């Protein structure tokens, strides 16, 4: 687990003057300081902030009324089946239509306490809205479920927290990681009457909602507001700057608490495996996005004139689009396969295109090109093609000039220094070797270590979606609750 300090939190000065860089460098981290020689975004923070407002504006009350009337109130509704958290979509939309906004919000939140952020960041086009029966050949217009969900959550006015805590069980659960998985778990545990202590490595709660989602998808301080709302149930305390394997030991947690939930996320960015990977000008997209999201002054952010983003997922799109919005002239997204294999959804790719992001497919990273100062000046790629399902290099070399390269080729588990960590890991050797290593859990999110549960991106298999993490946390809480009540806990290994 990494100890991470948001380098730009509240900063108005330029990068070089931050003492944190030394700390970060000592930790072998390759953060935004590697871009310190690049020009600043310039302009004013407020002008730039205008470019990071809502990508999709909320529905007006009238729009919500019209859209909610379109829902057919299906039985065994496919949208609900497509929702990883199983939100009763037909029911909450009917509540919206019947002017029962609080009822609608509770319907959502009882399945997904992060219903507000999921309404904004969920790839609804591949989940509920894809499944909507109105998304048929004749109509092709699914109900705007995501926007309706946001309408309900944003407009509900609760007097106090809408969920009550059950009478105290006298049990206390440790939750490691204050991201969507950990906090969803904590909230559900609190509802069930347990005390919860959350340990978070960073300085703020929220996980990827706070640090990882494109700023225009989750603007302002929504992520913090949502966490505040969640915590208002009571019974949850959070300790920051607490990293497993660093100043937190699993054995110690187990000894002190009745159960442990690990919602560690995937803190490590995968490596390209090329020489020059640590050169100034090359960094992980997630680190830049984290800095961008925490920046007190967007104008002070280093912004390359020409940039390459390597990857084909939603993070790659988020990175490329945000660079464009910060004023980069030329952003090229490079992927070693074709469009059809991109994990970014069609909707995301459209966003990139409307921002004039160049998308170069069938090109695999070959070499990082450096200038005489050892800084990134571009990349060399080799063209690829598919033959009998296998990806082959064609021998044709392509060079793309760039002032910075951002890799968005996936995240992996950070190496855990905890002595008990090996017991958690996936035993499948091929997954361990190809960097897909995650914590192994059973159907109830129990790890191999009795009393230790895990969920969210850090477990296999996962879709790496916020909504999936929330579901993991929720289900793990129910499993913890049941296991504790049935006193089924096995002996702790000595």
């Amino acid at each position: 687990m990494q100890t991470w300090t948001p380098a730009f939190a509240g900063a108005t000065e330029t990068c070089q003057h931050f003492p944190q860089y030394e700390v970060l460098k000592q930790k072998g981290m390759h953060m935004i300081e590697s871009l310190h020689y690049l020009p600043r975004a310039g302009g004013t923070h407020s002008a730039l902030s205008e470019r990071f407002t809502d990508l999709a504006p909320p529905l007006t009350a009238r729009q919500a009324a019209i859209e909610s009337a379109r829902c057919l109130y299906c039985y065994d509704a496919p949208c609900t089946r497509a929702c990883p958290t199983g939100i009763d979509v037909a029911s909450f939309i009917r509540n919206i239509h019947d002017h029962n906004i609080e009822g609608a919000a509770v319907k959502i939140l009882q399945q997904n306490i992060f219903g507000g952020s999921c309404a904004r960041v969920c790839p609804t086009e591949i989940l509920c809205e894809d499944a909507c029966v109105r998304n048929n050949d004749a109509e092709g217009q699914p109900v705007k479920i995501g926007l309706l969900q946001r309408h309900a959550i944003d407009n509900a006015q609760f007097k106090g927290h809408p969920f009550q805590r059950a009478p105290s069980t006298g049990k206390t659960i440790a939750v490691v990681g204050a991201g969507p998985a950990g906090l969803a778990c904590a909230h559900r545990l609190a509802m069930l009457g347990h005390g919860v202590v959350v340990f978070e490595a960073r300085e703020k709660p929220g996980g990827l909602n706070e640090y990882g989602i494109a700023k225009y998808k989750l603007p302002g301080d929504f992520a913090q507001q949502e966490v505040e709302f969640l915590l208002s149930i009571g019974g949850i305390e959070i300790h920051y700057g607490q990293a497993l394997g660093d100043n937190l030991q699993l054995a110690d947690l187990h000894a002190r608490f009745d159960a442990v939930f690990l919602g560690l996320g995937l803190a490590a960015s995968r490596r390209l495996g090329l020489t020059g990977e640590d050169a100034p000008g090359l960094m992980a997209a997630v680190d830049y996005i984290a800095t961008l999201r925490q920046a007190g002054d967007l104008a002070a952010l280093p912004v390359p004139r020409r940039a390459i983003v390597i990857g084909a997922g939603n993070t790659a799109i988020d990175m490329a689009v945000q660079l464009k919005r910060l004023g980069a002239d030329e952003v090229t997204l490079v992927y070693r396969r074709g469009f059809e294999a991109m994990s970014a959804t069609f909707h995301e790719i459209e966003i990139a295109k409307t921002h004039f992001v160049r998308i170069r497919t069938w090109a695999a990273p070959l070499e990082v090109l450096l200038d005489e100062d050892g800084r990134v000046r571009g990349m060399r790629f080799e063209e690829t093609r598919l033959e009998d399902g296998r990806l082959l290099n064609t021998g044709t070399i392509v060079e793309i000039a760039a002032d910075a390269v951002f890799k968005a080729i996936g995240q992996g588990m950070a190496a855990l220094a905890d002595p008990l960590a090996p017991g958690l890991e996936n035993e499948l050797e091929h997954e361990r070797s190809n960097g897909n290593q995650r914590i192994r859990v059973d159907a109830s999110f129990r790890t191999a270590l009795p009393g230790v549960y895990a969920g969210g991106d850090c477990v296999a298999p996962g879709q790496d979606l916020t909504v999936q993490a929330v579901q993991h946390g929720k289900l793990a809480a129910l499993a913890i609750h049941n296991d504790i009540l049935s006193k089924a806990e096995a002996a702790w290994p000595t």
Partner: protein
Amino acid sequence: MADLSIDFCGIKSPNPFWLASAPPTDKAYNVVRAFEAGWGGVVWKTLGEDPPAVNVSSRYSALHGKNREVIGFNNIELITDRSLAINLEEITAVKKAWPDRAMIVSLMVPCEEAPWREILPLVEATGADGIELNFGCPHGMPERGMGAAVGQQPDLIEQVTRWCKTYTRLPVIVKLTPNITDVRAPARAALAGGADAVSLINTVNSITHLDLDRMVAYPIVGGASTHGGYCGSAVKPIALNMVAEIARDPLTSRLPISGIGGIGSWSDAAEFIALGAGSVQVCTAAMLHGFRIVEEMKDGLSRWMDSKGYENIAAFSRKAVANTTDWKYLDMNYQVIASIDQEKCIQCGKCYVACEDTSHQAIARLVEGEARRYEVKPTECVGCNLCEITCPVEDCITMVPQPTGLPYMNWTKDPRNPRAEVV
């Protein structure tokens, strides 16, 4: 092109579409606009004795559908709030300027002979083509012994109709209230009094909805409300039935009927005509959309008539009356079974849950991975039509007649009927 003109108990009109007695026919300005738009006739807003009625502020309310379309409409307005002289003057002028259009004058005066005797010559002098007796207004006026207070008592209907037939040569149309148990009684009374025709339905007693914060119904006048008259598409089924009841009653089957109640399209009008109406009256649809709707109504009716080979209104008038019968004469051997077009099915499951929860458990839900397949169980289906009604996709579920090979047999002959007539 089909001939839309009608001769309704002697009243000629270029088309069967009349504006009903209501705010749209309140004064010359509106009526002239209506005639310019193409309406075949109007029933002028009900005249009464001077001093004219006084209306309250806040007069209408409505029942809205999911998309805020108006399903039903409610009003608490009274008869004309303008003086008799002004109305008569305007009626005269408008009829003179539009001689080819039907001009019927609605009337409501106290239930005594003298007021009727006095007002009828005045109306006749305007050149109007006929009169309509407002025995239907369900709000306000009945409290003064008029409107529905008359329409709910057949003997009064007969009496007033007779006075009218005595004191005017004009055709007399008696407008009936639906706020009774059997509409045939007032229709027979009107006929007995000498009525040339009946028109129906007037509005239905109603409260559309409430302000739950103020705990008062709409429309709100000060802190209170009162029941109003309901109209609009919501009342069409009630009106169609009452028209059919009169049309198929042997005692009144020759009595011309002007159909009123939720007519907003050419097909609504065609339905009323097929069930016995000789003209139709429209109000709510015009109030919601303006007079221009008559264009689509005329065009649609005319094209449909052409497609069916109906040369004039009489060609299809009353054509559905004979097919409207008592329950006991329905064919007990007839059988339909639902059929789901799997190509059109969007897998919403509404047919399934409706049948499973509330009907005959005649639809199977087959889970095929993420997909669902809904199939009718022919042996369980009783042919109730519920699934077809709940299905959001047009023509996806159809009710298919089954070849039973059995002859027509009604309940009076059914061996399952303990009181069946022995063949």
